[in-house]
Structure formats: C-alpha cells, structure tokens
C-alpha cells in the first residue's frame, strides 16, 4: 500500500488506542472547533465505548450483577472491557472470556461460585440466539432397535451447554434472575445445569446426581452405553430411564445416530 494511503489508517489506529487507554492523550489531529479544547469532547467517545460495552455485559450477566452489586460489577466489567474489548460487532457474542476473567479477579475471590454463574448466563445467551432446530423426537429414539441402543450417539442441539460446578450454581442463578428476594442458599452444594432451548424459550435444568457425567459424555460424542456407565460411576442413584427422559425433555439433541 502506498504511503499516502496510510494516513487514514494512522488516524483510526491513534483514535482506537486512545479510546481504550485512558492514560493516553487524545490523537493529535483531533481538536475542538474554532480553537476550542477537546479533552472533554474526546472523552465523550471514550465514555460511549466503555459504558456501552459495560452495559452489554450487564445485560448478558444480570445475575452476576445482582450478586456483586452494581458498583462492583461495573468496576470489574470496566477492567474486562479494557483488557478484552470485543472482536465482533455482534455484541451477543461478547463476554465468552468473562467467566474466566471473573475466576481470576482478585476482588471476587470471596465469591468462588461467581464464575460458574457467569458461565450459565453466557450459555443462556448463546442458547437464546441459537439456530431453530427441532429437538430429537421420542419416536426417533423408540424406532431404534433395543439391541443397538447402547451404541447410539447423539448430535447436540446448538443451544445445548452443560455447566458443572462445585457450588449451588442453579440455585444461585435461579434466585438472582427472579424478581423475588434471594433467600438463604447453601452455596457449597455442588450442582450442574444443562442449558437448552427446545422451542423459543431458553430452559435451564438442574441435573440430578450423575446426570452431569451422563450428559457430558453424550455432548462430547460418547455412546449411550458409555454415558450410562459414566452416570452410574458418578452416582449410585443414577437411573438410566430418568436420564433418557432428560435427553427428550430438555431438547439437548437433534438426532440419534447408530454406528452402522
């Protein structure tokens, strides 16, 4: 590219660098009209960018914000926005790295469950926008020869996501997304949730013991037989019929495939 074509690029690069780094001055070519100053003027852009991205995170992670309180959340989100600005203009794709950021965020160390709640909320938004695909119908499963059932694998619905947690992530998520006041929650009770969207509404399901291992196996391409073994190894109470019922009721899969 000839040198003369680089001026526009340099202008944009300088503008971008100064927007995301408050320690930098405004770009040299930016000024006010009629000899006016432009620090406050340039700060309008800084503020628009930072605040709108923080607002986007607040919209995606409302339960996290309710748990931390607004001031804490916005301080944390501001650090994230500056460290990891979005790479796509589609803001509903933003924040996949936010749960990991929260897990490493020193000031959130007193809330070790917070990152898992954020994972559920991120999965919720992905499910909300996922493609419209019909979940696996009970008849499709019933049509499979019982002799081959253990070898069946399942194709996941694009909305389906599993979040396994050492904490009561479903209870915390659920209570903080409702309008009611949050009662006492035993945060130390391990829970796992399955996020799906069988129709237009996103569904968040607290999984019985053993079902997390079962669904994790199926979602990563394991057979029904392998998943049943994983479920039984994880929990004595694991019931395969209940687990197969969960496959159908959550809409986590779109097809059952036999090996031959």
């Amino acid at each position, binding site marked *: 590219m000839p040198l003369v074509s680089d001026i*526009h*690029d340099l202008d944009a690069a300088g503008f971008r660098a100064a927007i995301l780094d408050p320690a930098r001055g405004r770009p040299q070519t930016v000024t006010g009209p009629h000899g006016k100053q432009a620090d406050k003027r340039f700060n309008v852009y800084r503020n628009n960018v930072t605040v709108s991205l923080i607002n986007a995170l607040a919209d995606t992670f409302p339960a996290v914000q309710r748990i931390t309180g607004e001031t804490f959340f916005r301080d944390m989100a501001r650090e994230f926005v500056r460290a990891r600005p979005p790479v796509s203009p589609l803001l509903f794709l933003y924040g996949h790295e936010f749960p990991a950021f929260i897990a490493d965020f020193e000031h959130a160390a007193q809330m070790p469950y917070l990152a898992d709640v954020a994972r559920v909320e991120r999965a919720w938004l992905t499910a909300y926008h*996922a493609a*419209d695909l019909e979940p696996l119908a009970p008849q499709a499963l019933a049509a499979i020869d019982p002799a081959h059932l253990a070898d069946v694998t399942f194709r996941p619905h694009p909305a389906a996501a599993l979040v396994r947690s050492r904490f009561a992530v479903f209870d915390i998520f659920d209570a903080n997304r409702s309008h009611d006041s949050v009662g006492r929650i035993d945060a130390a009770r391990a829970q796992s949730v399955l996020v799906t969207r069988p129709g237009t509404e996103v569904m968040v399901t607290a999984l019985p013991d053993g079902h997390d291992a079962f669904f994790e196996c199926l979602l990563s391409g394991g057979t029904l037989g392998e998943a049943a073994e994983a479920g039984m190894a994880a929990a004595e109470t694991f019931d395969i019929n209940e687990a197969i019922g969960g496959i159908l009721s959550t809409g986590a899969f779109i097809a059952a495939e036999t090996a031959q």
Partner: protein
Amino acid sequence: MNRTSLSQDPAPAAGTSRFAARTARIPASAGVGFKHSHLEAILDDPDPVGFLEVHAENYMGDGGFPHRALERVRRDFPLSLHGVCMSIGGPQPLSEDHLTRFKALVDRYEPGLVSEHLAWSTHDDVFMNDLLPLPYTDETLAHVCEHIDRMQSVIGRQMLLENPSTYVVFENSTMSETDFIREIVRRTGCGLLLDVNNVFVSATNHGFSPLSYLMDYPMEHVGEIHLAGHAVQEDDEGEPLLIDSHDAPVADAVWDLYAIVVRQAGPIPTLIEWDSDLPDWPVLRSEAAAADRILDEVAHSFMMGKSHGKISHAVG
C-alpha cells in the same frame, strides 16, 4: 406475550415475496425503532405506525426469539433495516463476514429501506461499539466510496447513508461534511438518511448554523429522516455539548428544524429513534403521531400547490 403468534413463516416460493404487497414500500409517514418490549403493544395498537426500523446487528443471530419477533411484525409492517456496525468510515476493507450476514437479512426480510452510517467502529479487529468520526479528506472519501460501492453491490440495491453527530473535529479535514456527503452521493449513487437531531447536535457542538448545513445538504437525495432525543453536557469551555443519546423525546428545536426540512423537501419517511431508557409504548407512539401531524400538513400543502415543494427554495 402470545407466543403462539410467533410461529415461523413458511418458506417463500422462488422469485416471490413472502410478505404482503402493502408492506413492501416504506410510506412517507412516521415509523419507530422496533423494541421487543413493545411487540405486543405494536401489534395491538388500533392506529398502527407507518413502518418499523431495526438495527441489523440485533438480528444476526442464527435463530430464536429475535427472528420470531421480527417475522411476526414484518407480516404487518413495512421494514427499514438500519446497520450500525458496518464501519463504512474506517480505513480497512469491510468485513466480508458482516456483509454476508447483512445480505442474508436483506434477502430474508425484504426491507423497504436499507441504511448505514458515515462513521466507523472497527479497527484492527477491535470493535468499539460507537459511531466514531472521521476526517473529511480525499483519502477518506475514496475509502468511504469504495465501501459503499462494495455494500451496494453485495446487497444488490441502493443504501442510504446517515450523517453523523460529532463531538470533535479533525485538523486534517479539507472539506465540509456536506461537500463530503454530496460527493459520496455523486460517486456511489447511494441515497441519504438525514438525521435532523444529528444536524442539531453537531451544529451546537461545533458552533455552526443548522439551517446553513441544511441549505448545503443535497436534500433531493434524502430517502428517510431520523429524529431522536439528545442529552446536554458541557464542553471544555463550559458551553453546551450535546450528546446523541436516543434516550429522550425529540427536542423542540429539532421538531422546528424537521418541519422546515419537510416543508421544503416534501413528505419523507420519518423514524423516531429511542434506544435507551425506553418509554412505554404510548409515549413513543405519541412522538410518531407528532411527526405524522407535520407530515400530514406538508402533504396537504403539496396537494394544494406543487410550487411550495421545491427544495431549491432557500431554507430559513
């Protein structure tokens, strides 16, 4: 909300529209920005607005509720598709991914109007979620025209370009915004979306007369008008600095400018934009009704004598 009303439309037959003919063209009346919280009220309103406009990026997901809602309103209303993030004013080539997504929406929803901004938001793969300003030079003009050519060729139709609201100026600009815009129209054949609030915001912020801007503006190419509310802050010298916030009713001064514009240019599709601190539906509906009253008065005088309608008459 009546979820059952959001069932998916059947696929269209080849070469035909999926939508009623009456919803193809945007009428020269008032429309509003479509927000999901207003869905039921919009469908139930006995006095429906003239058209709805959506931000294209909000419907670039694969599926789910946003598409169900848009499919539903599109059955009853003409639609304007307004892009916010194409980054037409940036130095880099447009994102082919974004163009592909945009084209898919145009094909799917058959909007009566398509528009984008004279601004940029992405550079080196960082998306800044704001409409950032550019200097007006021969070089930036060439970039913007290349980008509009590309967008119009991908979507296969004309787009409207919206004038920005700005808070700073560039020392290296060599032409006025209106000269820049006029030259874009000449080179690309695009139409214009005149945001009257943006004119008022920029005029106040930069100390020029909004009427002289409008006199220099190529009004004959305007296919749509935007009206919105703004907020008031202070600049470095303590004087008013207006922010294009879209979170309030349209200001009286902007209504006055709007009336001047349509009295000169004739009835033009007019959108009320309200994007944050959303009001209840009746408040937004009444803003659209206020625009319709001015449009009706103008349409009436246009019917009475076309001589009132020449844009070549000096404004102000």
